[in-house]
């Protein structure tokens, strides 16, 4: 019988979250191809929006894919290239970052950046109050970073918590470390840190420990890196919680797409994965010791 080719286009593993995403994609490929001999998944990784647009062209022109699972580098620039794939007749599953024209996609699987920011802020409010000080370390200036940040700021507003400053730490441990060091030398009184991403969190933790200020503040990260989840599970006081932004969503998307071809009914719709707060109680269910992330 005919091989069904499904293209999977994702950003390259340039930082922790994307690394996790790449890992989950590769695992899902192995699992799905083993379970469905007539399915061929082709994973391509891109270094930027233009590069990803090229990948999409190649998936169509060289591989002749019947379906596409795509995590767009950026929403707007990839909308037209994905539309072109759609026009070639392929089934489209969009992951994480929505296209500007949602009518293109057949399936949408996503984490929720707004909720992530909101959940983080809600937790801050449970621990801190009027007159307490926090600092924020952001990712790379992009839409999803802005979504998280804006949602956080909206939620924190009116709580009386002072946001001392926010700086970009580029979803990078080294930058997290250095930016936090500088926050520490700048502000004598910090009660909480929103690091937004677990790579950044790891850098922040080291900076705080090195400055010996780990007793006076706590850190909220994000994404669900296994080291952090493990810490939460073990009752770490410096990083007491984490907010999930699951890299496994790519596997979900691939599952759903394969299901469209191998199950009976057509698959359609949106699968929005929530951003639950990971606490000591529920941490075990978010812990993947084999994942690199």
């Amino acid at each position, binding site marked *: 019988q005919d091989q069904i080719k499904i293209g999977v286009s994702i950003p390259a593993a340039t930082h922790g979250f994307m690394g996790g995403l790449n890992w989950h994609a590769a695992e899902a490929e192995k699992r799905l191809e083993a379970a469905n001999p007539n399915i061929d998944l082709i994973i391509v990784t891109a*270094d*930027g*929006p*233009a590069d990803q647009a090229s990948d999409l*062209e*190649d998936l169509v022109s060289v591989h002749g894919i019947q379906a596409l699972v795509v995590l767009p580098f950026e*929403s707007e620039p990839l909308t037209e*290239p994905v539309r072109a794939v759609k026009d070639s007749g392929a089934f489209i599953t969009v992951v994480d970052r929505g296209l500007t024209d949602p009518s293109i996609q057949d399936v949408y699987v996503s984490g929720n950046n707004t909720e992530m920011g909101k959940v983080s802020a809600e937790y801050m409010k449970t621990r801190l109050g009027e007159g307490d000080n926090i600092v924020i370390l952001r990712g790379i*200036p992009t839409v999803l970073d802005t979504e998280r940040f804006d949602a956080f700021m909206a939620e924190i507003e009116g709580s009386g918590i002072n946001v001392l400053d926010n700086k970009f730490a580029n979803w990078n441990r080294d930058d997290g470390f250095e930016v936090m060091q500088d926050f520490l030398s700048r502000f004598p009184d910090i009660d909480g840190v929103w690091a937004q991403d677990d790579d950044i969190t790891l850098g922040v933790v080291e900076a705080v420990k090195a400055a010996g200020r780990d007793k006076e503040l706590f850190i909220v990260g994000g994404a669900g890196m296994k080291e952090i989840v493990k810490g939460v599970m073990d009752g770490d006081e410096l990083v007491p919680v984490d907010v999930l932004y699951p890299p496994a969503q790519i596997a979900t998307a691939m599952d759903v797409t394969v299901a469209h071809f191998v199950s009976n009914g057509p698959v359609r719709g949106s699968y929005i994965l929530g951003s639950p707060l990971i606490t000591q109680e529920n941490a075990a269910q978010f812990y993947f010791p084999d994942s690199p992330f």
Partner: protein
Amino acid sequence: MSVSAHETGKPGRSFRIDLKTAGPLVALIALCIIGYSLNPAFLSEGNIANILTRSAFIGIIAVGATFVITAGGIDLSVGSMAAFIAGVMIIIMNSAVEAFGVSIWTVLLGCGSSLILGIGAGFINGFLTTKGKIEAFIVTLGTMGIYRSLVTYFADGGTLSLNSSAREIYRPIYYDSILRIPIPVWVFIAVAIIGWVLMNRTAFGRYCMAIGSNEHVARYSAIKVDRVKTATYILQGLCVSLATIIYVPRLGSASSATGVLWELEAIAAVIIGGTMLKGGFGRVGGTVIGALILTAIGNILNLTEIISNYLNGAVQGVIIIAAVYLQRGSLRAGKRKAAE
């Protein structure tokens, strides 16, 4: 006894010219064979059109870079400059749409501002390098940061998107073909030919080589060194703006991720093409082939699944080194043969 020098010279010369083009070409052909053997679809018309269209961006920018490098300079800012120009173009076109509605003039306005920005940005690089007497590396590293920041700032950390009705009009510039050849490829061809003529058939090209080879000599030969150097940066800016004009309709947006690392790719295309990084010797034809080689490598990596995605960069690195080695090798072999 006076052996007429130029007569004996002739055959050697045409032979040498063949070799010059042959070097990078050999590498490109080898790549094509690899590509075809991995997946015959590599040589399908659609795929070839894709490769050519894609290489147009880097290729056009690299043609400009050939002049800068030949004259002994370097421009690290081209990628950010492209992002910046794309961003400003989009802002201008969007406001034009708001004010006057959509028409072909919207696009022309955008293209016009792109050209002006490119020339201006190039001039700034050139001016700081020549009159400010600051190393080109530092100047363009600085402007690289500046342009990238500015586009992030304009986009408020997000993406600047072109108004969709303007995009409708603008879209064909990237996606349409004339005589079955995509428009970006036509632009690339035109830029390459003009670049080649400029480099090899005008005094300007000679001056670039002379300056890159020995600035004193150029100065003593009454060449206006600063002016020519500035002109190379302006030319570079112009090329960036042309590349941006065909880039914007492709993705219809600009953000801080636009054009990241293009500078490295452009310089690599130039060097793979046989131009010397230290200046003095430039080959526009080689640059074009260099850009094709780089694009083809990326394309070939998408053709097959035999290599872990994580190793893409490694394969790319090996191929680039091998391609240049092959090219230099065939050149050396050729020279040896010529000497016999």
